[in-house]
């Protein structure tokens, strides 16, 4: 009928022809995407490498086995809180109260265990339920009353700190020495268990990736070149084996009491990462979260219950925040009236954004929380080792957050210009 159609009549979809493109071509395509503003994990990984080099030269203890283990336990609560925030950011919303909501929840756990002698399992469940209820209330207010989440959660940020104070008493704190809870950050897997779990994760990932690739090829769907799939498996294996190797070395300063093995917080993060990657990437709920973040009106017209998605996301966020502050309690050995206040939330938002999650909604992944969280934790850890005054820590972290947000804004503009 027209030239446009007849010309390409026999061509099919142009990319169908380039489905099995070479490694070189897909590297070029990747560079094109990065140039176009779709940077993915690049800034956080690059930042991490730079930070490791800088701190590694500045302080010889930074790269020690002991400090690497410390870094991972310090990063734990930040990463989990950032993971809590990713779905909220995907909606283009923000939850400023996530930190203190987690604080209230951890406080409920501490008070139940210490003051009421309840078993740890019950206390943890109560904490998670507390988080869920707070999240539902926030979600209901945001979705049904239509108040911007910024304002609603700012109100909760203030109000919930009062709740913590009331629960725990002015300036008070509850010591957490229950074995399981304290063990999250302070106990380690045995060396053998560490290797087995690590290898199992690599094998699991490799099998799934290869199966998916084969299925796509068989059904003639768009897929990455085989070499890229293999490269991804190798990269994951290298990271997993490297981290396992370092953490399985003796890191004790006292030769009589060797400390080695993976701290339990790490497998916990891996499990959460798998869970959230699955929920956001492979389920209808996840797809709808992205849709609402991209265009709420389009989502509504497609028959998606936008309110339900919003409420569920805020609920998930506060529940994950509870988990984050439980881990924080394990790291610091106590729950205090300031748990989750201060810069905890800013760290987490910064982590998600540095990782590549957009503040404008619709773009981001669970893994962003991990890479970004490591960047933030590395800054805090490295500056701490250098014995810098705490004002420097604040200024640097604030600067990094601003930088990440600027990168987000600029790359978003480039994306809309290049249509990626």
């Amino acid at each position, binding site marked *: *009928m*027209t*030239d*446009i*159609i*007849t010309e*390409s*009549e026999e*061509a*099919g*979809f*142009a*990319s*169908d022809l380039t489905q099995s493109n070479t490694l070189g071509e897909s590297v070029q395509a990747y560079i094109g995407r990065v140039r176009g503003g779709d940077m993915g994990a690049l800034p956080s990984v690059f930042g991490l490498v730079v930070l490791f080099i800088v701190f590694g030269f500045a302080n010889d203890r930074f790269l020690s086995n002991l400090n690497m283990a410390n870094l991972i336990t310090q990063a734990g609560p930040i990463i989990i809180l950032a993971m809590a925030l990713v779905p909220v950011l995907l909606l283009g919303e923000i939850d400023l109260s996530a930190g203190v909501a987690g604080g209230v929840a951890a406080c409920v756990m501490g008070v139940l265990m210490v003051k009421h002698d309840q078993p740890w399992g019950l206390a943890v469940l109560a904490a998670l339920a507390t988080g869920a209820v707070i999240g539902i209330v926030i979600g209901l207010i945001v979705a049904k009353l239509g108040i911007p989440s910024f304002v609603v959660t700012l109100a909760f940020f203030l109000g919930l700190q009062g709740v913590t104070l009331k629960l725990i008493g002015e300036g008070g704190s509850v010591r957490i020495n229950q074995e399981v809870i304290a063990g999250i950050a302070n106990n380690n897997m045995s060396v053998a268990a560490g290797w087995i779990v690590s290898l199992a994760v690599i094998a699991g990932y490799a099998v799934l990736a290869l199966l998916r690739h084969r*299925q*796509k090829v068989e*059904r*003639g*769907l*768009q897929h990455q070149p085989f070499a890229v799939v293999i490269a991804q498996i190798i990269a994951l294996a290298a990271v997993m084996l490297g981290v396992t190797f370092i953490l399985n070395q003796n890191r004790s300063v006292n030769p009589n009491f060797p400390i080695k093995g993976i701290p339990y917080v790490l497998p916990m993060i891996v499990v959460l990462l798998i869970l959230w990657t699955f929920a956001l990437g*492979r*389920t*209808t709920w996840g*797809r*709808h979260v*992205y*849709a609402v*973040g*991209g*265009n709420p*009106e*389009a*989502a*509504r*017209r*497609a*028959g*998606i219950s936008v309110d339900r998605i919003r409420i569920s996301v805020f609920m998930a966020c506060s529940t994950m925040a509870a988990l984050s502050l439980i881990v924080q309690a394990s790291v610091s050995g106590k729950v205090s009236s300031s748990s989750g206040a201060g810069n905890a939330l800013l760290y987490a938002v910064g982590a998600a954004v540095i990782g590549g999650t957009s503040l404008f909604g*619709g*773009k981001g992944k669970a893994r962003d929380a991990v890479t970004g969280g490591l960047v933030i934790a590395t800054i805090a850890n490295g500056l701490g080792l250098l014995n810098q005054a705490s004002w420097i820590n604040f200024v640097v972290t604030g600067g990094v957050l601003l930088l990440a947000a600027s990168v987000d804004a600029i790359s978003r503009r480039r*994306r*809309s210009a*290049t*249509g*990626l």
Partner: protein
Amino acid sequence: MLSSHHPISDPAPPERLTMSASNPLLELRGINKSFGVAHVLHDVDLAIYPGQVTALVGDNGAGKSTLVKCLAGIYPIDTGEYVFEGKPVSVHGPKDAGALGIEVVYQDLALCENLDIVENMFLGREKKSGLVLDETTMESKAREALTSLSVRTVKSVRQSVASLSGGQRQTVAIAKSVLWNSRVVLLDEPTAALGVAQTRQVLDLVRRLADSGVGVLLISHNLTDVFEVADRITALYLGRVAADVATKDVTSRQVVELITTGHSSDLDASASSTTV
């Protein structure tokens, strides 16, 4: 140029000429709709016939988009009857309209730019195997639907919608109706933002949809387009139906009069009734 196995590729069936024989697929009777104090639709009657293109014309603000959104279940109807295949139905949301086989291509395109073509085509109706999204089935089906419309200008079905041109987006939206085997397709100014060639493509697409037995409602300000593809014309004037006529019974000048003044002096009053 079309894959011959698809029904849409068949040449225009004869029903197009014997329109009076078929009953309306979808009918609105005496629809009223207000936004607060603004009474936008007054006792609107509308009929959409299978295998026909019904054009809905009217000036800016006449209420065309509002009528489409009422049909789609986006806006609740204040009073009036919604009849599908002769049976009164109640449509409370986009899901209900979708269940009846009604697909809408909105004037303000309802696509998520951050999702790709496949994800958009299945949005709200994702295929699953167990708990997990069935990406392979969705991608194959989306590919089939686009191929059957001989859409060849998009590079890949996994391209994000943000990277598509206006015409390509329009095509994706229309392809949804093929994908879901829709009975009725409502298109709100699908060619408004398009160039000559892309308008051509979309109009051909519209005609092919109707020829395959789908009831099509086409909103357009371009009377040349309307006269080319439409079998019937319904003119809306300030929220009221000014005329409902067969395209062959009116001239372009008369339609312009209907749109701008609400009536046409020399339009045979009986024409509108006999053709229904």
